[in-house]
């Protein structure tokens, strides 16, 4: 491999990449991340990887309609100048030039000595996308001038002209039947012959004829398409106060944080079980919807977002059955300010591949999708969400998506931006929009400043931007004589927690209405509060004097809250001899009896009397049966937690790491190149990957190489070949010796050198 190719045009793509400045290489690796993992050894390996089928498809999927059209035009024109390519695209030349530049930056096309050309695999990858490509064939190797072709078309008889139009309209291919292949225009006896004679149709293998690209262009007025390809579908918008957008979004953001907290508080006490198939039962989802005052799709979104953020995960209940539980990360999350919590949820949503919009619908087999079902995800979701936000960010301030037509217009725009995506992508984009509205990323059909920051990937910034619009946490409540307390905004966590213990929640929303009842106050006493503490707490949180009836209620409850503890046990043990009782309770042989000492002279047992009695006798005691009585513990259900899913990193960290990685890869490639350059040029056997890179270089450059090849008999020989395609472990190449295209197994190629 020569290191002399510093000048443009390069002989191979690898050579061109080698000549690129670092920034451009970094940009390429960033735009096509699959090229960077694992890090390629040098530029030739990078070039070779860029031409693989899967990588090409991935890159093409990310192109918009204009870029695809320019690429298509490049295929029609063959190797040519950028001016020529731009001239045959029906689009603004500036737009087309920009699109072409992007194709070069993405290494989908490169500047060969004879002009710009598309990578060889592109033609294959572009096939079979009707509506995306023009459907024109590549031009002939030495096409006639457009004026000349136009003249030839003008000479045609009406029948021939009609036939030409027909062929052009039906895929640019036909069969000739009886038509002679080589006739002069004068001799032509049929419309087909007329076209063949004027080289408006060109024969191919068998009796097929094709319409060469230059003729197709001529028929379409010198462009690859009849319709302009750069008219981006407009977004339907209507004017709306930007302040309302921000308020609506903040309202939704507050709601979603509040609901997730409520959901997980609830699940911490009463976790729903995990279905055998891994999801959440429909019944449980309905319960969530009821509890949170949302519809079922809304409930599904909340549950999914909570999971995507790592706030809920599969855990086990004390009895060992799998259940959906809040994670320990939820506890950390609950302690953060609302804006930060919101940003975490949005981050989780953006990065997740889950498709909550499918919950409740049926799959192909007629099975209903459950929320949290493991298979409920799609690789396209993330892109759909980012793209939806990106396009929504284009709606200017003071305007919103128009009611009714706005969302379809946005979906259409996304269709233009990603024509190669399947139809389900549109559904995902539409779903992403409604999810964004529920999550408070967008409001009233537009992005507020916070939403724009989300779209730009700046979540901490978004949290900061939304913060002033969120309801301020309040520390005080209004106590009223009807025994209610109203918190006119989100309460400080600690106050809320205490109030929650002492009163029942009657209504939720921006404000919370609590009601004190004797039952709720008793709950407080159960948790160890005294009447004085309750009254002090009420005085401290109330904006107004504590109403007299409430004080009365507290005192009433305190008066009746007995010091007597009641409950039941299977049996009790009573002994005047304290030592004997203690010995019995601590006897290891009595462990199964569940003995518990309540007082020095009283113990209870959880075993029934008929088990207890014989066992006590075995232990040497001489019990007398008296009666059944005992005490009970007051307990509340423990909050349960699952372990957080590990390995999650904040979104920013991932990007930083990626950036660093890409830089490192670029440097590594450079090092590889330098090593390669400093190595004496040999034609010796090279590594398999080196061979592949060399072969791809040859394909791109259309050059001739000598390969070492082990034939069927095990004999090594050299062949002079023009490589054409490299696919599925086989090289197809024109073999100069055999004067035919032959297939070579790549693993038998021992070396490659320039001829």
């Amino acid at each position, binding site marked *: 491999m020569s290191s002399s190719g510093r000048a443009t045009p390069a002989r191979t793509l690898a050579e061109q990449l080698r000549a690129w400045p670092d920034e451009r290489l970094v940009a390429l690796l960033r735009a096509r991340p699959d090229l960077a993992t694992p890090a390629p050894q040098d530029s030739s390996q990078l070039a070779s990887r860029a031409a693989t089928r899967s990588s090409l498809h991935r890159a093409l999927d990310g192109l918009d309609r204009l870029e695809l059209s320019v690429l298509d035009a490049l295929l029609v024109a063959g190797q040519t100048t950028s001016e020529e390519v731009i001239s045959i695209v029906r689009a603004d030349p500036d737009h087309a030039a920009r699109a072409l530049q992007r194709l070069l930056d993405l290494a989908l096309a490169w500047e060969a000595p004879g002009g710009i050309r598309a990578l060889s695999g592109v033609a294959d990858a572009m096939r079979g996308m009707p509506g995306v490509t023009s459907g024109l064939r590549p031009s002939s190797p030495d096409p006639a001038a457009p004026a000349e072709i136009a003249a030839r078309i003008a000479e045609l008889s009406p029948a021939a002209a009609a036939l030409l139009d027909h062929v052009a309209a039906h895929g640019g291919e036909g069969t000739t039947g009886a038509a002679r292949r080589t006739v002069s225009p004068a001799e032509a006896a049929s419309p087909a012959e007329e076209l063949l004679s004027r080289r408006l149709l060109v024969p191919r293998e068998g009796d097929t004829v094709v319409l060469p690209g230059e003729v197709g262009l001529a028929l379409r007025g010198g462009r690859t398409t009849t319709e302009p390809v750069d008219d981006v579908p407009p977004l339907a918008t209507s004017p709306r106060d930007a302040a309302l957008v921000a308020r609506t979004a*903040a309202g939704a953001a507050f709601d979603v944080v509040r609901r997730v907290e409520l959901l997980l508080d609830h699940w911490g006490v009463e976790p729903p079980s995990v279905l055998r198939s891994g999801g959440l039962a429909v019944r449980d989802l309905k319960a969530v919807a009821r509890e949170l005052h949302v519809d079922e799709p809304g409930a599904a979104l909340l549950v999914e977002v909570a999971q995507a953020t790592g706030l809920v995960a599969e855990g086990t209940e004390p009895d060992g059955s799998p259940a959906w539980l809040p994670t320990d990360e939820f506890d950390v999350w609950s302690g953060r300010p609302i804006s930060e919590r919101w940003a975490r949820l949005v981050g989780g949503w953006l990065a997740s591949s889950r498709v909550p919009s499918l919950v409740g619908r049926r799959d192909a087999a007629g099975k209903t999708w459950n929320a949290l079902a493991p298979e409920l995800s799609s690789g396209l979701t993330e892109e759909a969400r980012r793209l939806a936000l990106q396009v929504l960010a284009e709606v200017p301030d003071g305007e919103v998506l128009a009611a009714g037509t706005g969302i379809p217009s946005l979906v259409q725009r996304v269709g233009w931006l990603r024509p190669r995506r399947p139809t389900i992508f549109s559904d995902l984009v539409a779903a992403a929009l409604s999810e964004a509205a529920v999550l408070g990323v967008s409001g009233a059909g537009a992005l507020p400043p916070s939403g724009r920051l989300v779209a730009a990937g700046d979540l901490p910034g978004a949290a900061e931007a939304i913060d002033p619009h969120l*309801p*301020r946490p309040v520390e005080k409540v209004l106590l*009223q*004589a*009807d*025994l*209610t307390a*109203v918190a006119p905004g989100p309460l400080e966590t600690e106050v809320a927690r205490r109030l929650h213990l002492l009163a029942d929640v009657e209504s939720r929303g921006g404000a919370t209405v609590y009601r004190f009842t004797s039952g709720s106050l008793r709950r407080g006493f159960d948790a160890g509060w005294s009447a004085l503490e309750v009254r002090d707490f009420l005085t401290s949180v109330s904006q107004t004097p504590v109403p007299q009836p409430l004080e009365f209620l507290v005192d009433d409850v305190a008066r009746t809250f007995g010091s007597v503890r009641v409950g039941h046990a299977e049996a009790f043990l009573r002994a005047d001899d304290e030592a004997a009782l203690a010995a019995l309770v601590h006897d290891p042989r009595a462990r199964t009896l569940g003995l518990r000492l309540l007082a020095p002279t009283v113990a209870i047992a959880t075993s029934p009397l008929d088990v207890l009695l014989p066992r006590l006798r075995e232990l040497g005691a001489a019990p007398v049966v008296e009666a059944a009585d005992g005490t009970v513990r007051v307990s509340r259900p423990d909050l349960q937690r699952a372990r957080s899913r590990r390995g999650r990193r904040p979104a920013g960290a991932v990007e930083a790491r990626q950036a660093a990685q890409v830089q490192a890869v670029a440097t590594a490639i450079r090092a590889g190149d330098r090593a390669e350059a400093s190595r004496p040029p040999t034609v010796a056997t090279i590594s398999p990957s080196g061979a592949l890179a060399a072969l791809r270089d040859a394909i791109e450059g259309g050059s001739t190489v000598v390969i070492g090849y082990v034939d069927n008999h095990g004999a090594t020989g050299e062949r002079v070949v023009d490589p054409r395609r490299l696919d599925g472990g086989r090289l197809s190449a024109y073999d100069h010796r055999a004067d035919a295209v032959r297939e070579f197994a790549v693993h038998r190629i021992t070396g490659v050198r320039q001829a």
Partner: protein
Amino acid sequence: MNDGPLIVQSDKTLLLEVDHPSAAEARKAIAPFAELERSPEHIHTYRLTPLGLWNARAAGHDAEQVVDALLTWSRYAVPHALLVDVAETMGRYGRLRLEKHPVHGLVLSSTDRPVLEEVLRAKKIAGMVGARLDDDSVAVHPSERGNLKQALLKLGWPAEDFAGYVDGEAHAIDLAEEGWTLRPYQREAAESFWDGGSGVVVLPCGAGKTIVGAASMAHAQATTLILVTNTVSARQWKDELVKRTSLTPDEIGEYSGAVKEIRPVTIATYQVLTTKRKGVYPHLDLLDARDWGLIVYDEVHLLPAPIFRMTADLQARRRLGLTATLVREDGREGEVFSLIGPKRYDAPWKDIEAQGYIAPADCVEVRVTLPDGERLAYATSDPDTRYRLASCTHAKIDVVRDLVKQHAGQPTLVIGQYIDQLDEIAELLDAPVIKGETPVKERQRLFNAFRSGEIGLLVVSKVANFSIDLPSAEVAIQVSGSFGSRQEEAQRLGRLLRPKTEGRSAHFYTIVSRDTVDADFAQNRQRFLAEQGYAYRIIDAGDLSAESS
């Protein structure tokens, strides 16, 4: 964040911060469509219900106004789902219309065909409609007008009734405004009703519902049937009408258990109408005895179920409902809406009070402790007799005596449920008793004496609860009540809320036995009164005597 006084909750309640500077404006904006549920001192709670929204639609408000009011006054962002729901609910009203067709008579029509299809498919509707006239309308049997409206409301598609009313037999009735004038809200209420056709006017006790009825009759200028709860109330209506209108006593008939007169204006009791003999209602003919141009229902919230059934057949006549509250203990608010009509006028109690028409009341709960002996008896007694035992404790009688002494010189009522207890109190205080067995004549004599100031203390049983005008009572002492119903409470308080001459505040005492079911019921009462915005205090019986001495 908007600094509005309103907080819209996701459960469709609206919280209004009373002390907020723009609270009054916000209240005005939401009052037409939201029902005031609670009005304690700081935060008033309104609720959005389908009925309330439909009531608003009937009164000419549209969804846009509702949404706008919520957005304008809300402090936080309004849940989007709620706005959608409001628009959808309001959109349901009037999608179906009952109209009079020149050829086919009564027809049910709709501009929204799927809705018509949906309701016609309902089993309940099938028997009430006749032939399909065209795609958008169907004939209705005139006799089913009321039932159909009721059934449609249950299906969630309330029909608007444009079929009109019969004029009824004309009869000249004019207001005689001599020495008094119609208060502005009374005039507004009567006009709102008349413009709406049929419907309910909600005014607190003592705010002059009778006068609203009289004003409506003056609008109608037609023979009128007035349905009231009992005989005493019927006589009061008669007196009031004679005083306030051009009607003479001869033009007004009473139709009750005792007298059966049918005159251009007839006042009948619910009881006589609902009396059943051998499975039929013998007095049902009264409804058709004359060509009534207006039917007035006093105390709509107490309207017995059979009257609903009868009312279903009276849909061609104008109907006016008068009540202090739309809340019915039996939850039949929907039937009032569909059979009598939507709410046409409403004024929050406290607002009227602020205008000076009603004296504010001071509500005090006095707690007595059962003596040890009674406590033991209470603890070991049957659940059915516990309430009685708790209510009738002797400890209460001492408190009554103290209170009466404390308010000596002020007209005082002692109200109770148990006759024995009332008799005992009456004997002790040397005061007359009105109970079930007291003849109507005697009752009226006592009431008149009380009103004129001849008697300063009256002991009354449950029978006195409804619709008896005792304008000068300033103190009421409740010793026992029937299981703390909200309605009863409204009635009792209403008794005290009648306008007072010198703007003195009225006192409402309830005496409650501590730690018994009596106290539990008292809690309901306390909640209701506090929710209505009345100051509510609890004091100990011991403190009371200390206070008075």
